[in-house]
């Protein structure tokens, strides 16, 4: 009898494990936390400092930028890190917009793995796309170099392979990486927002980051410190402290309140993470501190709209994932149709977004990139439209 019960219990545990495995919705909601400002250039943040401003304008184009010929048939797959994340849906929206604009006779599929199966799922989708005879795939890589053999396999099968949001570190199997923003710029944008919120005479502020070992966060904070130290424009700003909320809402909320207690003269919390900025804004709102301490950083308009309108977080920034999807689509379409070959210095026209240049990716040893930039800074005037 006892044995029967214990076995029954064991069985229930296993069944519940298996059932939960089939309902991957829960982790999805947490996922954007760590991912939100995706680690585009995780591999070599240091290299980013000698960034590309020069390279961007480098070769004077004799023949003007290439324009896409609409109406060709290119079957494409847009592959996000995983499904159920707002920013990836936005990227899909941008890609669909470009798809319609270019009157592609082929299909654009938005296919992704579930969060708990991201690495194996991405590899499976890339492999299957090659089997299906798809013409191009656009990958927001979540599998590090592990996806390289599958990507190379797709290349060997004649497919065009472009990465966006997050590249293949070794660049093996990838033709071009469409990068969202530059690390240097992140530091300057944050400093600009701080100055704009605090006014010309500046003030004291603290940084609420994700985890102490998040490569992208650290590189952004380093860029911010660099700008504060070297540019006299920002001399009036004083960075008090850097704390970590580990991209957990509750943790970040508590860290924000702890900062207020610790530094009574602090006027601003800068959080370069979408989880941190929303949690800090909520903390200030809940405690009625929005007049004394403002919040800024990198955030999602949909999550920040109420805090921006009530003045708790008057300004924050992010790149547009819609635009990123749109630009990625144009790049891929041009590569697949032979408009561009994927060589340094090639310039092309990306619809409503204007002209872009292919350059060597300064953040990796190998690989090419197209740098989208710039940040969009959101305030009360434009946040509502973006939050739709």
């Amino acid at each position, binding site marked *: 009898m006892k044995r029967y019960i214990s076995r029954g219990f064991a069985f229930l545990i296993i069944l519940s494990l298996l059932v939960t495995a089939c309902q991957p919705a829960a982790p999805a909601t947490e996922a954007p936390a760590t991912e939100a400002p995706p680690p585009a250039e995780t591999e070599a943040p240091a290299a980013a400092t000698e960034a590309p401003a020069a390279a961007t304008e480098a070769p004077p184009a004799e023949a003007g930028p290439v324009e896409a010929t609409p109406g060709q048939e290119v079957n494409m797959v847009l592959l996000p890190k995983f*499904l159920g994340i707002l920013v990836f849906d936005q990227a899909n929206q941008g890609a669909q917009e470009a798809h319609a604009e270019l009157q592609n006779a082929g299909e654009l599929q938005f296919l*992704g793995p579930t969060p708990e199966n991201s690495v194996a799922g991405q590899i499976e989708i890339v492999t299957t796309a090659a089997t299906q005879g798809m013409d191009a795939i656009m990958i927001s890589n979540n599998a590090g170099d592990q996806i390289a053999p599958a990507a190379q396999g797709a290349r060997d099968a004649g497919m065009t392979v472009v990465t966006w949001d997050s590249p293949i570190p070794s660049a093996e199997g990838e033709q071009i990486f469409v990068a969202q923003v530059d690390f240097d710029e992140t530091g300057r944008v944050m400093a600009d927002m701080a100055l704009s919120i605090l006014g010309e005479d500046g003030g004291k502020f603290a940084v609420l980051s994700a985890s102490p070992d998040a490569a992208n966060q650290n590189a952004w904070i380093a860029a911010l410190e660099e700008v504060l130290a070297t540019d006299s424009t920002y001399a009036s700003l004083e960075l008090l402290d850097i704390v970590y909320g580990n991209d957990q809402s509750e943790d970040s909320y508590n860290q924000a309140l702890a900062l207020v207690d610790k530094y009574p003269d602090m006027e601003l919390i800068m959080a370069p993470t979408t989880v941190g900025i929303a949690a800090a804004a909520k903390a200030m709102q809940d405690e009625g501190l929005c007049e004394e301490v403002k919040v800024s950083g990198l955030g999602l308009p949909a999550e920040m709209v109420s805090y921006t309108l009530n003045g708790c977080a008057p300004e924050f920034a992010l790149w547009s994932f819609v635009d990123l999807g749109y630009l990625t689509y144009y790049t891929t379409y041009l590569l697949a149709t032979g408009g561009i070959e994927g060589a340094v210095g090639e310039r092309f026209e990306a619809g409503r977004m204007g002209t872009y240049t292919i350059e060597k990716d300064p953040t990796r040893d190998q690989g090419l990139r197209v740098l989208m930039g710039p940040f969009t800074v959101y305030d009360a005037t434009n946040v509502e439209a973006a939050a739709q």
Partner: protein
Amino acid sequence: MSRSTESLPGGQSPLLGVWERLRSWEGLLLVLLFVVIIVNSLQAPAYLSVGNQVNLFILSIEKIIVALVMTFIIINAEIDLSVASMMGLSACTLGWLHEQGAPIWIALLIGLSVGVIGGAFNSFWIAIVGLPSLVVTLAMLIGYRGLARVLLEDRSIGEFPQWFDNLGQQPLIGPFPLALIIFFLLLIVAVIILQYSGFGRYVYVIGNNREVARYSGVKVRRAKMILFITSSTIAALAGLLFAARLGAVRGDIGLGFELDIITMVLLGGVSIFGGSGSIFGVLLSILIILNLRNGMSLANITGHVQTGVIGVLLILSVLVPNLANEVRAILNRRRRIGGPQDTTA
């Protein structure tokens, strides 16, 4: 006790006839497999190509290799939740040693030994100390994964020698890569041991009733030790094959695979309570899951739906036999109560 009632009824009632057919879970799986294959070949022209058929195995090859051993463990009324973490640990050991400059074949040997040691550790607590395998291997699921992450932290290690990558990524004989050949060899070995050897019979007997097995002179401890050491070692081997296929390793390699593996075994008709099931059923279930996933991928059905469909299959695979059992037990009881009254009348 439940066993004796099960063997009672004859086969006269028509309802029992249906039940007998349903009872042959393998029969049902075979039908399901044919349906999946036919639907797939009709809707996707690429499905039947040799390349796709090989890919379909290769994309899950590590899981199905481990599923073969998991079949033994579950028939033995135990569970090994640590297999996926062991895959991760052996792959990360390989990566770490490679990074330290060790020759790859030494790294491979040590990676495999990690599997043997881990299996010995598991089986010490399960077979000698007598702790439930669910608890021990759950702890090691966390423990081995933790070790793997400690070894590699957040790094991704690749750039193995070309021959090693080729072993995982290129065909070895005809269109078949090494891992697929290993799978088929292990499949044959598993069938022979489980269905045709004395050890295989012990596995069933212990799974049915450990005490009875012990009193009948079966070396229960020894059998369980062999099973858990084999399970970990094969998991370590699968981890190394995975590393070769991906050409790079990270701390999260193989994360969560244990659930997919157990799903395959349970859907194959192996009872989670032990004592029944067959390799043939598990092979059918593997083929169904792989072909179904492949078909859905070719039809551009996304991950969530795929997981959902497989989940429903699994729930049915657990529910249907159990419900049928219940129904039959009730019918039997009715008949027994009704029986004597009939004779007196």
